[in-house]
Structure formats: structure tokens, C-alpha cells
């Protein structure tokens, strides 16, 4: 296959996959929502979970985006140095976004800053955003796709704590965002926490934490323990679906971490709403693909 044909093939697959993720939730999120709905006892929360389920069913049947806010597309790429389209990847993801915008259709969500106009096709300066990880001696390419609406983007927050504030300070920082911005951010949501040195390292980790499958744990036992404590604690707050009270608040809490400067604890929080439109796809060097997030998905 010529390079041109390869680029077209991968662009088409990615455009279709992005469109699909706007309409169908990943398996882990769908299962978790079902579990929370079954356990729910508060009447208003039960009604809301029923509405969520009805919405996902209708979205699939009528082939429409399940939420009108289809976000600014983000792609988290783990690309092997020998993947044949490594050089073309960023350009083709942009083109796939345009294709998906018209074919799905997606909402027009790229407003050029300062000039303040909507480009009308979901691409603009620096959008969609592509985050890179290069994998030596590999010829495959893994992509997490993500669309977050404005509501669950709003609670995003990062700051640098003094070490004296410790992990107690991290706890306080996360909990404060939950009762101030949480009710509006479409609970039950997924909470991503980054613990590192500075605002940008912590912030990126907090978003990467949202790409982890539900039920996964941080490999560090203390970080995993803190995930559990925060999950149980935030659930006790009882935000419920739409922040209108209920038996739970979150789909999970994921913490990602790196080493830190001895004088600083960078911390950040990011939220993914109940309608958590994440996708995960892996390409081999011949562009055969495997979708791991949505079993049985047909593009």
C-alpha cells in the first residue's frame, strides 16, 4: 500500500472510531453505571439513572451523540518508533477530527482565542490536542481518544503545595473541588489526581489518570490506598447523579504520580463526567486495529 493510501485508511478508521465513542460508552463505564443504578436507593437518583440508561439506548438506536457537548478532541498517543505513520500521525488525527465532525456529527467546539470565532470544524490552533509518548523498538501505535464537555472540564485545578502540607493537603485540595464544582460536573464522575512537582506535570498526570480503565489501581500501595480512601470518602458525600443527592458520587478515583522536587508537591485534579467518552484503539504496522475499550464495536 502506498503511504498516501495508508494515511487515508488510518484517517478513516480514526474518524469512525471517534464518532462511535460519541455515541457508545466504553464497556467499563457502562458496567459501572449499571452497578451504581442497581445499588441506588434515593428516588430522584433512581429516576436520573433510568434517564441515563434510556439516553444511552436511544443514542445507539438513533445513531446520535449521547451528549451534545462532544468536547475538544484529545488524543493520548503511545507510538512505536518504527510505526510506519509516526510522522503523519498528528496531521491525520486532525483530518480525522474534521471528518468525524461532519459525519457523526460533532458539535463545533473550537473557538480561536483572541480572534474569538468558532472555526466550525473542531480544529484550530493547537486543537485537537495530541499528547505523545514514544516507545523505542516498537512498530505499533496505541491511541486513547477522549472528548470531555465543558461542565466536567470546569473543576480542573492545579497548584503547588508546600511539603509541610503533605498528603493531608492533597486530600483537602481534592475534597474542596468536589463540593464546590462537583455537583455541576455531571456526577457520578471519574476523578483523576496528579501528584508530582509543578502545575504542568501534575495537571497532565491528572488527565492521564482518566484514561485508565475503571477498577485499575495505582501500582504504588500507598497511592492505591489513597485512591480507595478518596473514593469511599467522596461517595460518602452523596452527590448522586447531577449533584441532586444519591448513594454515590464517583465512578472511581485514579491517582497518577511521579517523583517530586523536595521543596514542592504539585497536585492537580481533573474530572471525567458520567458520560465518560473515552476510547482505546491499537494499530499494528499493517494498520490492523484492535479496539479494547468497546468490545464488539463495528466501525
Amino acid at each position, binding site marked *: 500500500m502506498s503511504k498516501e493510501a495508508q494515511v487515508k485508511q488510518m484517517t478513516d478508521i480514526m474518524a469512525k472510531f471517534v464518532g462511535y465513542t460519541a455515541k457508545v460508552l466504553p464497556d467499563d463505564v457502562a458496567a459501572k453505571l449499571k452497578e451504581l443504578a442497581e445499588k441506588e436507593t434515593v428516588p*430522584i437518583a433512581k*429516576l*436520573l439513572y433510568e*434517564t*441515563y440508561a*434510556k*439516553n444511552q439506548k*436511544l*443514542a445507539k438506536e*438513533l445513531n*446520535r*451523540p*449521547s*451528549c*451534545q*457537548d*462532544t468536547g475538544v478532541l484529545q488524543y493520548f498517543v503511545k507510538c512505536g518508533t518504527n510505526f510506519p505513520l509516526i510522522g503523519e500521525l498528528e496531521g491525520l488525527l486532525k483530518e480525522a477530527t474534521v471528518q468525524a465532525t461532519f459525519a457523526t*456529527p*460533532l*458539535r*463545533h*467546539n473550537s*473557538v480561536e482565542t483572541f480572534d474569538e470565532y*468558532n472555526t*466550525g470544524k473542531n480544529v484550530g490552533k493547537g486543537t485537537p490536542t495530541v499528547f505523545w509518548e514514544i516507545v523505542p523498538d516498537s512498530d505499533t501505535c496505541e491511541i486513547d481518544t477522549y472528548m470531555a*464537555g*465543558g*461542565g466536567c472540564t470546569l473543576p480542573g485545578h492545579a497548584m503547588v503545595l508546600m511539603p509541610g502540607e*503533605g*498528603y*493531608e493537603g*492533597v*486530600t*483537602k485540595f481534592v*475534597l*474542596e473541588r*468536589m*463540593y464546590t464544582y*462537583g*455537583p*455541576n*460536573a*455531571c456526577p457520578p464522575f471519574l476523578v483523576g489526581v496528579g501528584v508530582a512537582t509543578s502545575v504542568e506535570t501534575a495537571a497532565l498526570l491528572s488527565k492521564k489518570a482518566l484514561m485508565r480503565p475503571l477498577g485499575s489501581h495505582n501500582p504504588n500501595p*500507598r497511592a492505591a*490506598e*489513597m485512591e480507595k*480512601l*478518596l473514593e469511599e*470518602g467522596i461517595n*460518602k*458525600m*452523596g*452527590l448522586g*447523579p*447531577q*449533584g*441532586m*443527592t444519591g448513594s454515590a458520587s464517583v465512578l472511581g478515583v485514579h491517582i497518577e504520580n511521579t517523583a517530586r522536587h523536595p521543596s514542592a508537591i504539585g497536585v492537580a485534579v481533573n474530572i471525567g*463526567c458520567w*458520560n465518560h467518552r473515552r476510547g482505546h484503539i491499537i494499530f499494528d504496522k499493517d494498520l490492523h486495529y484492535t479496539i479494547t475499550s468497546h468490545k464488539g464495536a463495528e466501525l
Partner: protein
Amino acid sequence: MANKVVLHTPIKSEDIENLKIGDIVYLTGKITTCRDVAHRRLIEEGRKLPVDLEGGAIFHAGPIVRPIEGQENAYEMVSIGPTTSMRMEKFEKDFIPQTGVKLIVGKGGMGQDTMDACQKYKTIFCVFPAGCAVVSAVHFKKIIDAQWKDLGMPETLWTSEVEELGPLIVAVDTKGGNLFEENKKTYKKRAEEVYEEIIPHVRFIK
């Protein structure tokens, strides 16, 4: 559902003044999408809103619409759901008396100024379940008007005919009730308790 409460536009004060927070209603009639820039144009830029909202309903929503093939200036509502209403908080207290709007649909609660205006002018704020944009869209029968299209798809004032749009959960009523402000106090108190429970377990710096 027994005793399903359906509001019809134009809405009168007496239709809504006995509703209280937590009640569930539905809407039949007309509703117009109206969000950040449209509010700003009316309140701060002093431009006349090109839609008559007297007794009307607005939806804090930026929908996905698509042109209907073969027809000029005709659009179909694909997905529509509420956006963060708090973004309109700085405008709503002036927007309500200037437009005469009676029903505001959005998500996540509004603040003291909107509460005061809702009480004074007999307007209610309701929440439609966010993220449920297809449940909502199927109640949109027809888009009948599109104004300020220069603002792009999400911000255009789309006026539609709806039939039993809902569930709309009353979150600010005409008597000074505010569901989210009340809930937030509870959440804050619980967060403080949770904090005390967690900290003995996370003293990793020793």
C-alpha cells in the same frame, strides 16, 4: 406518571408560583437556546434580543444541529442538553425582567442573584438531566427559528417547538428555594468530616 405537570408557553406566573424545589414538570410549546454570548449581548452590549421571550422558556444549551438536506435554512435537532448555568449567573438577574422569561432550563444550580430575581418576577429555574442529549432531542419536534447565527452552532439562538420536554426538576422556585445551594451546604459539611477520617491514613511524610 400520575399527575404529570405540563407547562405550556406562554407561561403565566400562576402556572408556576406553587411549584417548589424538587418538583418535576414537563414543557410543551416553544423554547429558545440562550447562553453566554447572547446574554452578554443583551445585558452588557445593550443589543435587543431578536426573540420575544415574554412568558417564554430558555434553555442554557449549545446543541448539535444539522441542516435538513434539500431544504434551505431548515435544521434538525440532533443532540441537545443543558450546559453549566452558573456561567449565566452574572446576567440572569437583569435578563429575567428585561425579557419576561418564565422558565429557565439548565444544569447545576444558580446563585443568590437569580434566586432573588426568580422570587421577585415569578420565574423558575429547572434542571434537565445533563448528558442525556438524545432523551431531550426526541422531544424537539421542529426548529422554527435561528437568530444570531454569526455566533456559531453552540451559541446561536435556536427556537424550537417541544412536546413534553422533561423531566425538568425545579431547582430554584418562586419562593426563595434553591436546591443546589441547600445541597452544597450538606456536601461541604460531609467533606469536612471525610477529611478528618482520611488524614490519619495519609501521613506519608514523617
